[in-house]
C-alpha cells in the first residue's frame, strides 16, 4: 500500500470543485473493422491524475489521441471546462479553435521527445515558442521564463542555446515537459512519459513529474504499461483491454485488490508494483 505513506498528490483536489475539467462520454474510435477504443466514459476533476494501463494494442494510446484532440472519435464526445465556459464537445469546434486549445488549455507530452520538440530550434526557443503562441512578445521575459523552466526541469540553464539534438534522451524528455508546462495548462496528457529511458533516468523523471503535478495542481491523464509508474503518479486507474475499460478505481485498490481476470493477470505478471 505504497500510497498510504504519502499525502495524496492531488492535495489541491477539493470537494469545493464540483465541476469536472474533462468529461469523456462513450468515446469510440474505429479504424475500419479494427477497434481503437470503444465506449470509454469518465470524468476528471481539477488536480486529479488518472492512469490508463493495458498492454500495447489495448487502445490506451488511441484514447489519449481522442481526448487530446489529435484524433477525431468515430462517436462519442469530449467535454472540456475552459475558463471561458464549458465546451460540450471539443470536436464540435472548428479546427483552428481546437488547435488553439491544444496549445494553451492542455498539453501533450509524447513518448518520443522528438514528436514534441522542434529539434532544429534551441532549448530556449522550444520553451519560448509556446509563450509566443499564447501571444507573449517581450523577448526578455520569454527568455527569463525559459531559463526558469530549464532550472525547474533540472537542465543547466547555461545550455539554453543548445539544440535538443545535443541532449541525452532523459534531458530531451525533461525539455519537452518544460515546453508543455511553461504556458500554464490545467491539464496534461502523457503517453508513456518514461518509456525508452534508462531506469535511473526514469526514476529522476518520475520524481520531477510527481513534484510538478503536485506543486502546480495539474490534472493529468497518463498512459503507461508500467504499473509501478501508475502506482507512483496516479490517483485513479483505468485498465483497458481490446479497446474497452475492464476495471477502474483508486489506483491502490485496482493494483492491490484487482477484481477483473485481466487486471489480476497484469498485476501478477510484474515483480513488484
Amino acid at each position, binding site marked *: 500500500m505504497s500510497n498510504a*505513506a504519502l*499525502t495524496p498528490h492531488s*492535495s489541491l483536489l477539493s470537494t469545493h470543485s464540483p465541476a469536472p475539467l474533462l468529461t469523456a462520454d462513450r468515446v469510440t474510435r474505429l479504424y475500419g473493422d479494427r477497434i481503437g477504443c470503444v465506449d470509454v466514459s469518465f470524468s476528471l476533476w481539477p488536480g486529479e491524475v488518472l492512469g490508463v494501463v493495458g498492454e500495447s494494442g489495448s487502445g490506451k494510446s488511441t484514447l489519449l489521441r481522442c481526448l487530446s484532440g489529435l484524433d477525431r472519435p468515430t462517436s462519442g464526445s469530449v467535454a472540456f471546462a475552459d475558463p471561458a465556459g464549458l465546451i460540450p464537445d471539443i470536436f464540435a469546434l472548428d479546427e483552428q479553435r481546437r488547435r488553439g486549445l491544444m496549445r494553451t488549455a492542455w498539453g501533450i507530452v509524447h513518448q518520443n521527445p522528438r514528436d514534441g520538440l522542434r529539434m532544429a530550434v534551441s532549448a530556449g526557443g522550444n520553451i519560448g515558442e509556446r509563450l509566443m503562441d499564447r501571444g507573449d512578445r517581450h523577448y526578455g521575459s520569454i527568455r527569463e521564463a525559459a531559463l526558469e523552466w530549464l532550472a525547474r526541469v533540472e537542465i543547466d540553464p547555461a545550455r539554453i542555446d543548445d539544440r535538443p539534438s545535443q541532449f541525452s534522451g532523459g534531458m530531451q524528455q525533461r525539455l519537452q515537459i518544460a515546453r508543455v508546462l511553461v504556458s500554464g495548462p490545467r491539464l496534461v496528457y502523457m503517453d508513456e512519459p518514461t518509456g525508452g529511458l534508462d531506469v535511473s533516468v526514469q526514476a529522476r523523471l518520475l*520524481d520531477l513529474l510527481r513534484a510538478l503535478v503536485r506543486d502546480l495542481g495539474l490534472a493529468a491523464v497518463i498512459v503507461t504499461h508500467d504499473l509501478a509508474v501508475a502506482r507512483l503518479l496516479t490517483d485513479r486507474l483505468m485498465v483497458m483491454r481490446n479497446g474497452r475499460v475492464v476495471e477502474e478505481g*483508486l489506483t491502490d*485498490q485496482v493494483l492491490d485488490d484487482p477484481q477483473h481476470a485481466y487486471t489480476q493477470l497484469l498485476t501478477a505478471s510484474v515483480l513488484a508494483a
Partner: protein
Amino acid sequence: MTTMIRVEGVAKTFVLHNQSGIRLPVLDNVSLVVDAGEAVVLSGPSGAGKSTLLRILYGNYRPSSGRVLVRHGGNLVDLVAAAPRAVLEVRRRTLGWVSQFLRVIPRISTLDLVRDPLLARGVGDAEATRRARDMLARMNLPESLWRLPPQTFSGGEQQRVNIARSLVDPAPVLLLDEPTASLDAVNREVVVGLVNDARANGSAIVGIFHDEAVRSRVATRLIDVTAFTPKGIAA
C-alpha cells in the same frame, strides 16, 4: 462517544480468475463500531483476515458486500460506495495509515517529509517545522540525518521516519499495521506512547500488533477476527 467507524455486514471473498476461478472466502458478516478515544486491536491467528479487514477499513480492499462508514467531518461516508476522489479526501483529512514501511518520494529531506502532512492540513510553516523537529527528536533520529532524504538510511531509521510522518499530526481515525514490528525496545516504547497520546486526544484507533506486551498496553478492546470467519472454513 462519537462513532468514528461503523462496519455493517461486510464480507470479503477473493476470486482468483487465473487460478481456475478459485474462491477464497476470508471474512463474512463483519459488523463493528469504533468510537473516538478507543483503541481496538484485531487478534486472531495468521491468515484469519486481520490485515484484510484493516485494508478494507482504509478503502484499499473492496468488500464483496456490506458498508464501511467513516466519520468525515460531520458526515458518515461509506467508503465502499463513495467515488474515488471522495475516498481520497477522506484519507487526506480523516484516515491515517501507519505501517512499518516507508515508501515516499525520493530526494526529499527527512524534515520535509515529516513537515509535509502538517503543511497539507494548513499548519503554518514555522509551526510545522517546530513540530516536525520535536517529532524527529522524540523518535531518536540524530539531527545530522534530518537534512538528508531517508532512502540511504537503515531499515530501522526509515521505519522511524515513517512513524514520525504518520503520527506528527494524528488523524481522527488511525489504522496501524504493525508499526512497532522490528523496532528496538526504546523506540517501541516511544511509539506506544505516541499511539496512546493520539487516543487520549480523541483519535479512534484500529490496529494489528503481534507483540503481546505492546498489544496489552495499547488496546482498550480486542476484537477476535475468527468471529468473522465464513462458515465451513477452518480458521
